[in-house]
């Protein structure tokens, strides 16, 4: 310990140290200040700026999410499930050919047209775009029947449009033969609802009017037309008796 003290005293008595001792403290404090500025103050000020930006962004995001939570908490699940059922009757998630044919038969009956033959093509499967398949109807009846059919088609719960129309006969409003090509629409249901931060889907008054309209069309259509009665002959319950 005494050796160290002696060595330290000798260092302090060094001529260079004695000559420039007045500059040691200012230079050292300047160096320390420069180091503090370069390694602590400047990086931290940058980090503070970035942190403030991040905080502002998160606050804005959180505000949107809180609004979404408020909107979702007001959702009536039962009513919305009913509405989805109604809309799926208009635009189902699959082709549902029997259901569509059932509705077409009901419409033909309503329009007093006689069905001569019916055929359909299968539509594409997969993807979430709107798909359609074609139903071809050979009908006969009065000319007013075709007009009525076109009108009644607009009030069918299932979305269908006329793709092509060929009519022959109907002189002076009499009987005619016609071929109607219908496009029947469907759309596969989406498999995911998107991420948490996606905005909540809004249902406005116009949408509610559409839903009410489809509901009224559905109510006017007998439930049994949802499936086609193929009138398959029934056999014995046990064929071995």
């Amino acid at each position, binding site marked *: 310990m005494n050796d160290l003290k002696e060595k330290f005293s000798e260092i302090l008595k060094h001529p260079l140290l004695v000559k420039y001792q007045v500059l040691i403290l200012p230079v050292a404090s300047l160096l320390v200040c420069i180091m503090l500025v370069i390694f602590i103050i400047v990086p931290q000020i940058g980090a*503070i700026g970035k942190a403030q930006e*991040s905080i502002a962004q998160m606050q804005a*995001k959180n505000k949107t*999410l809180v609004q979404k939570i408020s909107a979702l908490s007001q959702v009536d699940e039962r009513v919305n499930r009913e509405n989805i059922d109604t809309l799926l009757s208009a635009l189902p998630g699959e082709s549902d050919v029997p259901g569509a044919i059932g509705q077409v038969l009901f419409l033909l009956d309503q329009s007093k047209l006689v069905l001569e033959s019916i055929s359909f093509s299968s539509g594409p499967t997969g993807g979430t775009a709107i798909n359609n398949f074609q139903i071809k109807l050979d009908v006969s009846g009065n000319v007013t029947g075709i007009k009525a059919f076109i009108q009644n088609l607009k009030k069918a719960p299932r979305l269908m449009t006329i793709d092509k129309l060929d009519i022959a006969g109907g002189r002076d409003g009499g009987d005619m033969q016609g071929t109607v090509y219908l496009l029947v629409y469907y759309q596969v249901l989406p498999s995911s609802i998107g991420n948490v931060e996606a905005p909540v889907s809004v*249902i406005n008054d116009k949408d509610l009017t559409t839903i009410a309209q489809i509901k009224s069309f559905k109510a006017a259509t007998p439930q049994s037309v949802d499936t086609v009665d193929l009138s398959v002959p029934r056999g014995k319950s046990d064929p071995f008796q």
Partner: protein
Amino acid sequence: MNKLNINLLPIEMEQSKKSAKRKALVIRLSVIFLIVMIGLTSLVMVVAITQNFALRLEESKLKQSKDQITAMQEKEGLLFILRNRLDGINNINSRPSPAASAYNLLTSLVPPGVSMLSFSVGKNANVSISGETSSVVALNNFFTNLSDPAKHEGKIGNTKIENLGRGGATDRIRFDLGVNITGK
């Protein structure tokens, strides 16, 4: 009588006093500057720590909100599917139905006395009509209706007479027309 001041102290002492004062000032200023910088650094560090804390707090709030929304996924799914179906239905309803529109339009333009024997319309809204009439006046009225924008509301682009003649057992006037329906 003015006082006489005689300084008997050597000049070196005066100089060393001045030098010592200068040294003390430099040391004082250095220490003050160092203390100020350390203070500033501490302030910056405190602000940084506070900001970091605030950032963690916001992250936690955001996570909480996301968890709440995830818990309501079923409700969100219902709304999403409703919107999906409504968009599809609105899309289909906005598509024109040229065949139905063409049939309704042309049957409304056929005057009494003219019978439509055949009618054919496809996706491109080009209509082929065959008909007959016993009255030239009725036929003229029909052609007028087809060519007058006031009658067809501008929905007929052009009409082509493909066949026109009188004959047959009933001696009625037969015509075959091609009508182009516009998208209006």
